[in-house]
């Protein structure tokens, strides 16, 4: 493998100049630019051929073997033609790219599966009718009631969590001092680690105490979600507020602006882009929660329920869960389509967040 490489590199323009005995200090031989992709292709072909001949061919195996062979060859080739430092550089580059590719595999595969399976059933009809009066195995029904439920429950959760979370973050960054600040930081950390089912149980117990047994409604779900959401909002907003340079606060104080106005009109606008992104991440975290919603908002609603405070409310994750449990082909189709709907909603949220951050971000242009 290495012999032809050395020949190509010797003839490559600029790179493989033969080091002259004098004055060649700054020049060093290097592999031509096309060497890396070419090597990868050649190796893939060789490994693929070998696997075919042995009858073991499959794509993951091909990728893994090719990659390992590539790492070994590029390191050796580089060590021989170039030098040890470049060889290490090329090896680590290969490892980093490989890790990135590995990380992308589940993500792409997941998206692909959801899109392929989800598109079978996702259409205007599916999005605009509920499951009211549809028996589980009928070829009808849709997810409208679950979309309404998800949007309303997460919406209420956001309305509860964003002010509490943001104001806690402001307290921690701008006012907090000493023991109280430490305690709040500690409990926020603890809350970040609460399993979602525990948040659900907490609200079930609370509802039991306040309203008596058997009361499930959307508001209970929203409260369970805000228990999960508040610590995430606090954490991300805190980070963003800390990024605001102190000089800006001082500039504002020096103009005779009181502290609260400084926070409201200088600190928050400067950090608004990051805060929005953080809040959206928190929303994305809770919008797919299933367990607490099954406990609090119920899992058997089939009709559209616009009232957060009365009766069970379906949501997309719970819809997926209950459909999968029914186990017929049609149920799986519905579940995939609902999953795709959920992903699209989350993506729309991120899109809006991007727009908001771009619109509000501090402008540096001339």
């Amino acid at each position, binding site marked *: 493998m290495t012999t032809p490489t050395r020949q190509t590199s010797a003839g490559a323009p600029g790179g493989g100049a033969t080091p002259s005995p004098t004055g060649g200090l700054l020049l060093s031989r290097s592999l031509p630019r096309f060497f890396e992709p070419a090597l990868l292709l050649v190796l893939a072909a060789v490994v693929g051929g070998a696997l075919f001949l042995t009858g073991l061919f499959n794509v993951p195996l091909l990728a893994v073997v090719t990659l390992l062979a590539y790492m070994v060859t590029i390191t050796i080739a580089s060590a021989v033609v170039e030098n040890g430092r470049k060889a290490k550089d090329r090896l680590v580059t290969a490892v980093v790219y490989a890790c990135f590719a590995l990380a992308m595999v589940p993500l792409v595969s997941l998206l692909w599966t959801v899109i392929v399976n989800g598109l079978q059933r996702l259409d205007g009809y599916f999005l605009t009718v509920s499951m009211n009066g549809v028996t589980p195995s009928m070829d009808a029904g849709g997810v409208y009631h679950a979309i309404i439920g998800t949007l309303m429950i997460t919406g209420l959760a956001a309305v509860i969590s964003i002010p509490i979370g943001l104001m806690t973050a402001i307290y921690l960054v701008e006012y907090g*001092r000493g023991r109280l600040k430490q305690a709040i930081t500690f409990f926020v950390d603890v809350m970040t680690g609460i399993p979602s089912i525990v948040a659900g149980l907490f609200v079930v117990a609370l509802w039991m105490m306040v309203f008596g047994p058997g009361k499930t409604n959307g508001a209970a779900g929203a409260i369970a979600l805000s228990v999960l959401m508040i610590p995430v909002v606090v954490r991300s907003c805190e980070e963003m507020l800390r990024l605001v*340079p102190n*000089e*800006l*606060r*001082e*500039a*504002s*104080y*020096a*103009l*005779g*602006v*009181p502290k609260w*106005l*400084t926070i409201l*009109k*200088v600190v928050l*606008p*400067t950090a608004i882009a990051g805060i929005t992104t953080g809040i959206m991440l928190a929303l994305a975290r809770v919008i797919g929660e299933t367990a607490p919603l099954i406990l609090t908002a119920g899992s058997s609603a089939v009709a559209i329920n616009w009232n957060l405070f009365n009766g069970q409310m379906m949501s997309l994750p719970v819809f997926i869960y209950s459909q999968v449990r029914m186990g017929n082909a049609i149920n799986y189709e519905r579940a995939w389509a609902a999953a795709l709907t959920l992903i699209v909603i989350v993506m729309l949220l991120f899109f809006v967040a991007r727009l908001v951050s771009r619109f*509000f971000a*501090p*402008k*540096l*242009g*001339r």
Partner: protein
Amino acid sequence: MAKRIDVSGLHVYYGDFLAVEDVSMTIEPRSVTAFIGSSGCGKSTFLRTLNRMHEVTPGARVQGKVMLDDQDIYAPDVDPVAVRREIGMVFQRPNPFPTMSIYDNVIAGAKLNNKRLSKSEADDLVERSLRGANLWDEVKDRLGKPGAGLSGGQQQRLCIARAIAVEPAVLLMDEPCSALDPISTLAIEDLISKLKESYTIVIVTHNMQQAARVSDVTAFFNLAGTGKPGKLIEMGETNKIFTKPEKKETENYITGRFG
């Protein structure tokens, strides 16, 4: 409009640490007073006590009196926010508000305080302040552009415009030229000479030529020793300080034989 500052027996602490010890001085209105001295000797700290900005640092406190004309700014019922409206400040690094345009930066003092300005009042204030800061001609065609897009020297003059737009009696400048090139520095120095006609100006500088060029009175600060608090060593007319200082320490510092 310009006011006299009279400091007597001022000690500045950070927690238990005494940073500046026993400073007494009088700063005359319509003049430029320069503070010189080595890094860490407490000139900036002392400057920040003059408009109660040091309180922003947790644990910082002072003992002593600072009179602005005949009002002690450390009297118990004095609001630091009101003090800062009377005594403006320009910082070492230019810090225009990144979310605001040039126009909004200038009227930030009014806007951030929710003061209602009519369009013509605001336009007027912006033009007057920018002219006052020698920046009007350079930016008059792009007032709506972000302030952060200006050059460093322009940003610093924008900050000065922003400070004088609230019409303070005193302007404190904490090494306003240390981040700027010689041309921008010259622009700021010209501006200082012009501003002293209507304001009391106090400037901290590491540049002794600058102190000699712009100030009427110079105060020399130094540490009493390693780990000891900073002190006011000598204060007097700039000419005198730079030609015949009374104290040996001052002479060593300005002649560069600082030990």
